[in-house]
């Protein structure tokens, strides 16, 4: 394996692994604090149990995410020292801020996970809120740095050097807002669907278990709201891409000829040599409309750009199709869910809908991975769009296939263990008897729970920690 390819593969593999853990770490705190907040308001111990169990799953994933994120911060330099030497100061502002946001997130997650009996319920809930805010901020800052690679601004390029650096301009580059909003929504959307799907599967096994009904009742509204918002955000991002990275947009659409009334292509398999995209359903004018808000607008095709500046068209186009299809599917499932709950709350009794939720569980994650392929592969051959090629940024180190192989095996093993542990935690969810014990042990709702009363609610469970 060629060293450049090995370096790219290692980076891609590390990111593909980390991105799932990162979005879970970002979105799970929202579900946790909603559950905990409802416990604080109603005194219903099932909500507390739900928050605790979700927190355990989050803890496993956050720990692995924290270390795989550390790996990435080193890999930026280990694999792409030339890129970091030039881009470091330019992406410095978002990365420094991300450092602080992540730091605060780690601190408050420690307090949240281990502080249940040490601080007041209200302080504990606030710690969870801090995890949510800092996690989201940290995600936004990282994506901001990535957006700069797509739309580099905030410098003068003189003799191959990035000089007269304007850090704020680099940070608030033309792509930052649309890319960040798209990613943040995707994070909450994918995690909400995954959680709803897992609890739907459990509810299919024990269809009267209120534990899982409570869980779905929290996750599904988030899933629905984000699934409805995402296509709008995606459209804004497509417009920003059309303006800043016309090559990427052309590759996403398998669009070779520059034309007015450009068609939207659904499915299709781009052929770079023939410069066509056969097997596609073409809807005339829609691409022009989506990119520029005008059915007659001209959309530049790949043929307008030098061949050696094309990204791998087929990969980008197919990944884009997968992302959009998953998004549309999730949108349909959401609309169906809204309809069902509006029609006399049939949501939990409609087994076919629970099955649909189970099938939909991985869609968000698939969409995120595919969307990330669109972003990153779509920028090739550039690491900094228009300024630095990926091939010029790689380390002189040789035999990079070795670390690539080692880290791939390691991450594979970790994935298996994480999935296995999450599965064990899910299948130890409380059964009906345990839930009744929980209810009996709880104080009446009129008395708010206090930190200094002995915690009996957790005692009868098999894996209480």
């Amino acid at each position, binding site marked *: 394996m060629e060293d450049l390819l090995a370096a790219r593969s290692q980076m891609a593999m590390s990111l593909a692994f980390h991105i799932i853990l990162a979005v879970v770490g970002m979105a799970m705190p929202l579900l946790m604090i909603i559950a905990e907040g409802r416990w604080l308001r109603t005194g219903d111990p099932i909500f507390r149990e739900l928050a605790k169990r979700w927190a355990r799953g989050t*803890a*496993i994933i956050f*720990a692995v995410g*924290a*270390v*795989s*994120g*550390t*790996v990435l*911060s*080193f890999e*930026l*330099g*280990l694999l792409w*020292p030339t890129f*970091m*030497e*030039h881009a*470091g*100061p330019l*992406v*410095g*502002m978002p*990365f*420094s*801020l*991300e*450092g*602080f946001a*992540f*730091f*605060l997130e*780690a*601190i*408050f*997650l*420690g*307090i949240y*996970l*281990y502080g249940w009996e*040490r*601080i007041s319920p209200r302080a504990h809930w606030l710690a969870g809120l801090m995890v949510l805010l800092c996690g989201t901020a940290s995600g936004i800052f990282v994506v901001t740095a990535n957006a700069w690679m797509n739309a580099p601004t905030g410098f003068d390029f003189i003799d191959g050097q990035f000089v*007269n*650096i304007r*850090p*704020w301009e680099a940070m608030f580059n033309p792509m930052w807002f649309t890319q960040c909003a798209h990613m943040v929504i995707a994070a909450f959307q994918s995690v909400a669907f995954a959680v709803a799907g897992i609890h739907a599967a459990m509810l299919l096994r024990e269809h009267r278990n209120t534990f899982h009904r409570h869980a779905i009742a929290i996750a599904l509204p988030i899933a629905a709201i984000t699934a409805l918002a995402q296509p709008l955000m995606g459209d804004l991002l497509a417009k920003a891409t059309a303006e800043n990275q016309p090559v990427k947009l052309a590759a996403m659409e398998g669009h070779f000829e520059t034309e007015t009334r450009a068609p939207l292509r659904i499915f299709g398999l781009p052929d770079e040599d023939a410069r066509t995209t056969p097997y596609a359903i073409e809807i005339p004018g829609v691409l022009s409309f989506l990119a520029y808000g005008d059915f007659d607008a001209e959309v530049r095709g790949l043929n307008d750009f030098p061949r050696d500046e094309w990204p791998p068209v087929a990969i980008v186009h197919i990944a884009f199709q997968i992302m959009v299809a998953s998004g549309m599917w999730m949108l349909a499932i959401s609309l169906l869910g809204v309809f069902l709950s509006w029609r006399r709350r049939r949501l939990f009794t409609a087994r076919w809908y629970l099955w649909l939720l189970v099938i939909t569980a991985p869609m968000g994650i698939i969409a995120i991975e595919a969307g990330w392929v669109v972003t990153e592969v779509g920028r090739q051959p550039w690491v900094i769009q228009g300024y630095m090629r990926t091939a010029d940024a790689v*380390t*002189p*180190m040789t035999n990079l296939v070795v*670390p690539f192989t080692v*880290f791939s095996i*390691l991450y594979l093993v*970790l994935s298996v263990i994480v999935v*296995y*542990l999450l599965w*064990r*935690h899910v299948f*130890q969810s409380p059964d009906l008897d345990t839930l009744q014990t929980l209810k009996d042990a709880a104080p009446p709702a009129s008395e708010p729970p206090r930190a200094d009363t002995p915690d009996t609610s957790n005692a009868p469970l*098999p*894996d209480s920690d």
Partner: protein
Amino acid sequence: MLELPMIVAAIIVLALIVYLLTGGADFGGGIWYLFATGERKDAQRRALTDAIAPIWEANHVWLILVVVLLFVCFPPAFAAIMTALHIPLTLMLLGIVLRGSAFAFQSYSAGAHRLERRSARVFAIASVITPFLLGICAGAIASGDIRRLESGAIDTNFISEWLQPFPFAIGALTLALCAFLAAVYMTVEADTAPLKDDFRRRALWSALATGACAFAAILLAMRDAPLVWTGLTNARWAIPFQLITALAALLAIAALWTRRFHLARTAAALQVALILLGWALAQFPYLVYPDIRITEAAAETAVLRPVLIALALGSALLLPAFVYLYKIFKPGPSAHTAPSPDEAA
């Protein structure tokens, strides 16, 4: 006048010191997990994981802060280090991943006992390897073998810069320091007298090991790391500084000997901070000796100034939160006044 690059460099050193004092002690916890012995073996291990669990992720972030500051503010130094030390840094990363994941797996094993036991062992072994490699990298940076050519390229064969006696001696020293810190902290945090005694013995032995490693490192520095050797012996500040460090070390040992564990903890932390500070002073004004100086490697003022402002604002949020975390999980002397059953007996 204080220049911006110097301020950033000082902050990096400070973050490294805090990382060694907190994250380093977590590594030490893993080392003692591996070498838990005697009849209270399980109690020692439980005390160690309880002490690490709520805080390790926060402690770990200091390292990320150092890396980010390095590539934002001193990009040529970052590129040089990451290029020449590719191998030990990659191995260190493997250690970091294994350690963090394995610790989480054994904490949240959901009753999977075999996985729990194996994870605990992986956590312990990775806790030994990781600080050792970190020390090797630090030693290599100071030894003067990482050369940056006029063109900006790094003259390296990726091996001879770090596969040397001196970096390995620094690796061993780092390992000893981590073990020492963890053992001393645990004399305060362990909740029974026999456990405190277990860790007291370990603290005293590792103090001895630290001294031996430091002595070996200094001897090797004479030949292999002229910059550190000159700094630590010839500079104007060197002798008084060495004396203060030695006094802190003696104080830590004396306090351990007489079982004044809170005093021992303060003295040990001071000693370790001074060792790292002495190292930083000896290496001044170089980031990577002898081709990359702090001022030459620094990014433009337009980059440094906003980063420093962000650091100041971030610290205003971060430091109270960090203190709050430690207040919750590491209560001070006042909270420990109630004697544990064993001490009372």
